[in-house]
């Protein structure tokens, strides 16, 4: 039943190494200091669970989006104080029909993982998609997103994409 892949042979990149974080018991651990939500955390949200982009699977390929460089750390803009996140992603090919679904996955994952105070913007990187404006409009329209998430088939697809891949 699976339709022929549009981009059958994508370039696959390696995942980046993560720096270690301090845990209780380490000398530099401070119980009351706050960890600000930063680029890396958003990137990680999309990677492990709260750590939110690396893990989302491209609906067309069994690779996670980081391996395909759909999202890089630098493509995330975040301001914890002003509660604002903007994610710019790059579809694997210019006419990728799944761009909206990828965008929707990103949005859902962030909505489920970030505090509700955050405003989330999802954008296609300029010049990387044939119908850029249409996709951007669709992804950032509250009503349309809400409507999309009422559609059981779409939600199933999104959930499928968000299943963590254990390696």
């Amino acid at each position, binding site marked *: 039943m699976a339709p022929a892949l549009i981009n059958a042979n994508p370039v696959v990149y390696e995942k980046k190494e993560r720096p270690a*974080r301090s*845990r*209780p018991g380490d000398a530099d651990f401070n*119980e*009351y*200091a*706050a*960890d600000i*939500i930063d680029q890396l*955390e958003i990137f990680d*949200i999309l990677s*492990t*669970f*709260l*750590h*939110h982009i690396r893990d989302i699977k491209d609906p067309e390929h069994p690779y996670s989006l980081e391996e395909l460089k759909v999202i890089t750390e630098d493509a995330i803009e975040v301001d914890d104080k002003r509660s604002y996140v903007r994610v710019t992603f790059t579809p694997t090919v210019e006419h990728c029909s799944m761009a909206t679904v990828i965008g929707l996955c990103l949005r*859902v994952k962030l*909505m*489920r*993982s*970030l*505090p*509700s*105070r955050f405003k989330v913007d999802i954008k296609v990187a300029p010049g990387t998609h044939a119908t850029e404006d249409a996709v951007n409009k669709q992804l950032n329209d509250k009503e349309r997103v809400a409507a999309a*998430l009422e559609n*059981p088939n779409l*939600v*199933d697809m999104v*959930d499928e994409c968000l299943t963590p891949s254990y390696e």
Partner: protein
Amino acid sequence: MADSTPINFVKHIETYVDSSSSKSPAHQDASLDAIAKLLMNDMITLESLVREMGMYLTTTDNIIRARGILLLAELLTRLSSKSLENATIHSLIGFFAERLSDWRALRGALVGCLALMKRKGDISKSDATAVAQSFMQNLQVQSLGQHDRKLCFEILECLIDCYPDTVMTMEDDFVYVICEAIDGEKDPQCLLLTFHLVEIVAHLYPDSSNSLASYAEDLFNILGSYFPIHFTHPKGEDDVKREELSRALMLAFASTPLFEPFAIPLLLEKLSSSLPSSKVESLKYLSYCTVKYGPHRMLQHFELLWSSLKDTIFSSGQSDNKIASESLILLKNLIQQDDGKLVNLILNDADITSTLKSLNTTVPDQQRINAIGRILHVSATSSIASCNAIFQSFFSDLVTQVSDRPNFGCLYICVELLSACRSLFMNHGGPTSLNHNNNEQPWCIMLHSLCDKLTSSLVKSIKESSEDACSQSGVEGLKILALFPGSFMGVSKVIFESILVEFVSIIVFKFDNGVLWGSVLKALSEIGSFIEESHDFEKIPSFDVIVVEKMVGLLSDDDSSMPFSLKVKAVSEIGTINLKYMMKIVEELNKSVITSLHKSWIDGNSKSAEHAMLLLECYDNKVLPWFQNVNISDDVATNFALKIWEQIEEDITLFSDTHVEKKLLEATTDTMKNAVASCSSENQTKILDKSFTILSSTFKVKKSNPVNLIISLFDSVIIALHPKTHVKNPKIILQILTESLTNGHIPSSHALGSFFNKIPSKESIDISFIQLTKSCSNVNEIVGLSWMGKGLVMRGDEKVKDVIMFFLDFLISNSSQDQEMMRAVADSFSVMMSDSEKCLNKKLHAVIKPLYKQRLFSIVVPILQSSIVKSDSVITRSMLHRALAHVISNAPLSAVLGEAKKLIALMLDGLTILSEDVENRDILYNLLLVLSGILTDKNGEEAIVENVYIIVRCLSKLVAYPHMMLVRETAIQCLTAMSELPYARVYPFRQEVVQALSKALDDSKRSVRQEAVKCRQAWASISSRSLHI
């Protein structure tokens, strides 16, 4: 019993054959067993059974006929151990062989044939031929179901195994049938059999066999398509492991040299694939096949093999260890197959020679150098001839390059070659006759002539190079040279000594470079151990003079600028080589310890104190454990303890008022404890007597409390005592201890606990107990009492009940008293329940009764439980909860699980009360961990399910606990675990939990947020997708 009478067997047959749904499979199996039993016991004969079954075996109803034949076949399988008449077997096998044509009732025929064929001696050759013929004519194996295919393969296997003569006579046909049968097989279990079939067929026919030769290509085409073994659906791995299949296929590949023209090209092709797993597999197969196919067949492939092998090794980085190691194994196999050709290929390889030539002028990449180093290493170790060839082509050139201008590349390859020839020498040499041969080999002569030059350039590289890698290689090279055994002529004694001198001078002067220093020290100790093991009497004296003497001298040498900690490290490392060195070093250490302690006591010299601490630490971590390991005697430990006491005796009048630094005090007491603990009980008595004399003399001299140091050391001695040690003046000792602990000296309470644990006497216990409880006016006494309780409870003494009752009464009746005392009482339960590093553990010879914690748990918990219910004062309640939390969190989880139902509610109350005070956060965390333990244990589920509501409510509050991140994290993890409980139980709380988590998503700590997302996901997925997002 009626069932087993002969008359009823007809009924059993009917039951089995009946295919209607009224009879369950279990029922039918029972009938089968019953008939088999009758036959076994000769109640009925096989003939009469067959006669009775006649109709079932021949009827035209396919289903009934199939069942009938299957019944007969199954019976024969079960009777495999019973001997049958030849005539019976002949007629039965004729029947089954003929039935192979009956595809509707095939299962029974297959089972029957297999059962009979397995009776190896009973089947005549003609019968076996008949079965084989019928099999070949009638069966299309690949059109059958999985189980039938498996039976077919088993029949074929049985034919080859048991009737090779029969199979030999029909060569061509048989091989053809096998080809046909296995073509396109996909089931892992059947595949395992097919691979084995190919292997045994190939073994059966001689290599010159025409039929095998003509079918070899076809057979291999079938086999080859399975390589490399890879499951597209991981489920298949449950039945047959991938490794098993892969190994079976490998054996099949290597089963006959006739496969060589097809196998090697295939394997080479797969080797060039980009999949790591397929590379590894190809290398493994190639290694195995090379040996099996033999050199004359492999020779023609050498060039191709070498070039792909080279590419593989060159491109495999450090991370692909598996690929690299398999390639090297293959390389070794190939070289050992045929000495000359492959080595020549390597020697004339343009890549290798050009790289080696240009090491000094260009900077080639690290990976390539590593690869070449590994290739040359393996080649040189493979055989003497290859080693000679490689040395002759490269070695002198390399040495010249190294001495011109040392750089990492040539140093590295030099070192690889040295280590290769050393391991070659060790494998072929040793103290046997081969030595002489080895010493006359060209490589050895070359090494001998270049040794001077090489050594001096290695030394130069260590001294002058600024790169760590270079100096490391230098050290490694020198070490290998020094590690050649004495029988080897290549490295003379003079060179050995000069290497040692060089190393020692690095130890003494080049301590700024930590990495280099460490590796040199390690090299020295390796060299020492090696000459010790190989009993090299020529070199041992050199090592003694050059290394050991110098090292021992280091400790007392104040002039050297070397840091003291490094001195101690170097000395102790050398000491671990053997007992002789260790004894020398211990003597020196003792002197040093005593002098530096003396200095620091007398004038508070902080440098001496620091030295003393380093030395004591070395004693603790290196010397004492070493002596315990080699298990010689306890003299060293005893001596050390006595020496310290003697020094105290000497200095006693001097250091009364100086304040001994706290860290030094701790180090001294710890070492004293360990030293005394490793003594025998006789020696312990000696030490105890000595220390007691000194202690009481201080009382006499000063008429006041002896200084902290003496009493602390005395405590250490008591703590480390063996239960068998004789104690002369228990009463006075107790008196001293009690007094000192009343003054707030905590180690004395440890000593008191240990004393009661090991040397109990009812009378003295009573005295101390009364003395401590009577006044009970300060916290120190409570602490003392709790350690006493711990000592008693560990040995299972009844008196502990009095102690516990005293504590409980105190908590319940003293609600108005000052809180500090009450807290101390509550915390005493933690002392009694938890394990201590400082005293009362196995290492310090405590008497430990099994399950003492459970016993205390079961005594205390019911009392605390009822008191909590009764108490109406807030303070008392919170203190009781504190005590209960200590008891629960230190008890073994299994004990808590047993009482989980009663305890859950109390624990939750406790969590709520404890969360009110910041001070209690650690206790809170420990208690929460117990709750999470219950949550994740299968046995705790019932108790949890009953209390879901209160647990969720309590955890939801703890999710926001501000004072400890771990508490929040664990609370969320507990909630995650709860989402797995029965749906109906947890569903109602979904909203509440998700709400609590929405705050946690905004937690200040990242890891809490992370857990919150996981938990939220877990709770969201227990219902449909309709979570608010």
